[in-house]
């Protein structure tokens, strides 16, 4: 039992300096990516209605990718760097703190259980990130923006429906490319 726990722990945690600093620097890349995609969404009609589909996809992709590369607490560090820096461009930053945190923890759990080589592993990882994350952001929109409940529910469902498959494809492709690059072991 003790050995089994140790194995699981080994799979979830990576507390070396490389992972901590990696989490911070990738967190900054995460912020930059979210800012750019937020601007792209603002130009789209869906964005004008408050549905950030491109941004949501990139958000879910980075949440998973960084966690897969740096595990924990690197993943949570990157996620919270993004959430806290988003103060400067999104009033929803309060909900991002929780959404990002829960998303990265979910990915860690899935990555501890599976080797993340199959599509099903990534679909499962992104299921948690997109569903849990978007529900939290939806609640944030409800309380912070004060939008009607039915609108928040519909927007959340559409965002989940679009971001889940797209983020899954992106994460698997890029994770494999990063592994192939030899820059992460």
């Amino acid at each position: 039992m003790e050995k089994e726990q140790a194995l699981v722990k080994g799979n979830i945690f990576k507390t070396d300096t490389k992972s901590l600093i990696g989490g911070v620097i990738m967190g900054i890349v995460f912020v930059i990516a979210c800012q750019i995609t937020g601007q792209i969404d603002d130009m789209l009609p869906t964005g004008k209605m408050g549905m950030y589909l491109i941004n949501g996809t990139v958000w879910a992709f980075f949440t998973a990718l960084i966690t897969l590369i740096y595990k924990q607490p690197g993943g949570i560090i990157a996620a919270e760097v993004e959430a806290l820096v988003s103060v400067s461009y999104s009033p929803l930053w309060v909900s991002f703190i929780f959404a990002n945190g829960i998303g990265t923890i979910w990915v860690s759990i899935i990555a501890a259980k599976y080797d993340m080589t199959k599509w099903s592993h990534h679909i499962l990882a992104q299921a948690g990130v997109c569903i849990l994350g978007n529900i939290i952001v939806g609640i944030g929109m409800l309380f912070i923006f004060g939008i009607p409940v039915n609108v928040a529910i519909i927007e959340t469902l559409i965002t989940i429906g679009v971001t889940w498959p797209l983020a899954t494809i992106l994460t698997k492709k890029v994770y494999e490319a990063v592994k192939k690059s030899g820059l992460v072991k």
Partner: protein
Amino acid sequence: MESMISIDIKALVFPEEKEAALKNIKLDIKKGDFIAVTGGAASGKSLLLHTITSAAPKFYPCAIDGTVRVADRNVAEIPLCEMADYVGYMMQEPQNQMISRTVYDELAFGVANMNLSNGEIESRVKKIMSFLSIDDFAHRYTDALSGGQAQKVVLGSILTLKSPVLLLDQPTAELDPKTSAELYRHLARINREKNVTTMVVMDKSKEVLKYANRVVVMENGTMKECLTVDDYQNKYRTDTKIKNNLPIRVDRETDIVRLNGASHLYKSGIVGCQNIHFTLKKGDFTAVIGQNGSGKSTMLKLIEGLLKPTEGTVELFGTQVTKKNISQLRRRTGFLFQNPDDQIFCSSIKEEIGYVLKGKACEEEEKNRKIQDTLEFVGLKGWDEVHPQRLSRGQRQLLALGSVIINEPELIIADEPTSGLDEIQSRLVLEKLATLSAQGKTILLVTHDLSEAKYFANRIVVMNQHQLILDFKADEMDEYTKALVEIELLEGEAI
């Protein structure tokens, strides 16, 4: 004399690799030695330093058969965070190594980790600032420093730790000759006055040979020989500089680039370049030289339309550059950046080379032929499916060149393409540019290396303090030695 570093490595193997990355290395370095390490690409120079810092295997997991001792202690037994008591380590890119926002905090970073009192920290930092003559910018932000200043700050932050050994991996590869010479003078003083054992991976400037007492030559992961500087220079002397022997045919009638009194003032009020009058003829191979911050890059950005001239005009292929026509004009030019990593993003070399062909009206077979021809030209044939990030920096620069030339540009602008590369890799890149020049392409090369300018270009223009001050034929360079010394591009000696 007391032994400071003793290396005895039979083999160092990385996981999933069949070949040993280092093998059969036996080296003894005495206290106060100043060692230059040299060798070709992937010969194991940097890795040798990593075995001394113990980053290999602690940071880069690998299996080592053998031992490395520093100050009579086996480094395998010392945690990485305690290695500062033994060695100070400095890499090529200073911006990647600075961790604090201000210069003072950066200099104090290591000693603050040692938990010393604030009084002791302040005293050490002030001494180092004075030693490196950087007292003036204690409170400046680290991201606002020039390459040379940043490298001095990184060196300072290591010196405050008072480690008995200094290891430096191509510390001046991105610096201009003046700054590079200044940094080596500091290293020589540290070595002489503080008796700090110093080991430097040599970059193409070879400045280190002025101060080193021994040269370690690496080849294919092993130590080929360890020579005195005189023996090294006799044995590896290159009597004739590598030259561009290919013809450069200039069409004096056709202007490719024309700057008519172009200036650029950045929004922050900093002058980029001022009143530049410059014409590049078809077929020219022109080198632009100047110190860091002299305005070379601003000039290139004006030509490429990345910046708009605040005064004057820019013409490309006989047409004035405007927002409307810049995309079209750019299709006829190729730009090679200083850092190849700015443009490489695909997961295979073939994909990267062929990226610009995507969506072009061209048969698949024709596209493949072009890709294969380009791969052959840049020496990467057979590497089609390899991930670009697995290549050395020099190879990545060649890949970037390939992805630029596949578009068959008439004008190739190369912004310090050999910066950060060693001599062999630099030569490869330059030889490719020379071949393209012989094929009739117009080349505009920005470089710090005066010998590159002299031996590869047919014309040299000199930038100083944001202005173009000299314009002469490359083979007349010796006549301009005095002028180049005056603007501190040369240290009072001909190339």
